[in-house]
């Protein structure tokens, strides 16, 4: 499965929760598959999906799922110790690990070579780290939500993209409707 297929499969789970979605194709794909006001689409700042999501989770009680990528986690590695040391049991970090920088033309990442993001997350002190295969992501995600324990999921999937348009929604609109979902 490629990332868009994983997102399509987990969209029915995501729609009931606050979602912070990574910049570029992941946000464009989620926007096309199942746009929800509770989705915060990142239009800039590669790497900060997990930081933004942790901030939302620490500030309120609803479940927050950050959808991140292997390349984006590599660019903000400092996020993993921060997550480990500031436990928010309403926070799930879902790293879609396709071993490539998808939005920029599928250049390979180190996560697709020797580096294991699950091992790094554990070494950073994250307590619930699950590496799963693409087809199992929905089940693992649902269990993580129900566990009410902060969980890092590394979903191993294939590299590949679909053609789709950019998000033209105004950023302030994205932010405003997301905040209204937080308050609802």
């Amino acid at each position, binding site marked *: 499965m490629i990332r868009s297929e994983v997102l399509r499969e987990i969209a029915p789970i995501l729609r009931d929760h606050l979602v*912070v979605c990574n910049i570029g194709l992941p946000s464009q794909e989620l926007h096309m598959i199942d746009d929800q006001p509770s989705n915060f689409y990142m239009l800039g700042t590669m790497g900060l999906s997990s930081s*933004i999501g942790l*901030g*939302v989770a*620490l*500030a*309120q009680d609803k479940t927050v799922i950050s959808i991140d990528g292997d390349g984006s986690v590599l660019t903000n590695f400092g996020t993993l110790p*921060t997550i480990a040391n500031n436990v928010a049991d309403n926070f799930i970090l879902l790293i879609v690990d396709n071993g490539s920088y998808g939005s920029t033309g599928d250049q390979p990442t180190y996560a697709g070579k020797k580096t294991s993001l699950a091992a790094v997350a554990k070494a950073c002190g994250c307590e619930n780290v699950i590496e799963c295969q693409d087809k199992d992501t929905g089940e693992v995600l649902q269990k993580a939500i129900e566990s009410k324990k902060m969980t890092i999921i590394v979903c191993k999937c294939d590299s590949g993209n679909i053609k789709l348009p950019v998000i033209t929604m105004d950023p302030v609109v994205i*932010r405003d409707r997301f905040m209204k979902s937080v308050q609802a």
Partner: protein
Amino acid sequence: MSISTKIVDDFVANGIEFVTTVPCKQLAGVIDEVEAREEIYHIPSNKEDEGMGLCAGAFMGGKRPAIIMQNTAIGVTINTLVTLTQYYRMPLPMLISYRGELREPVACQVEMAVHTKALLNQLNIPTYHFHTESDADELDTILKYTFMCNKPVAILTDASFWGGYGDQ
């Protein structure tokens, strides 16, 4: 009352409950004060752009954030300030130690100091410079202004403000 206590009192009085910090020698006292306050969730960051992501999330989650960092961080956070904080129109008070100003003992710090105000100006970030302790009398107003206009706002605090680096 120490200046660090006064600063954090103003944070708390303005409803700031979520503070991220990246340390600087000049900021040690105010970071200790943030850590000591029960009203504030203190979350140290490993890098300032990460901290701004945390603050963006906290704001959207309903808590007023602030970041405490050194001016060298302006060099690593421009993209985040522009495409996250400003683009989505979020408030962010930035209490910044202004290294490389008068009384600075480390020459390298001057190299970033000479760019600091120019960069903030280029980014259209409202900027205030605390040089003497009484300048902090305006902090309460600056914080109110920040949350009124939903912008990042810089508060540069130099060595003279913090009482220098001891005997030189």
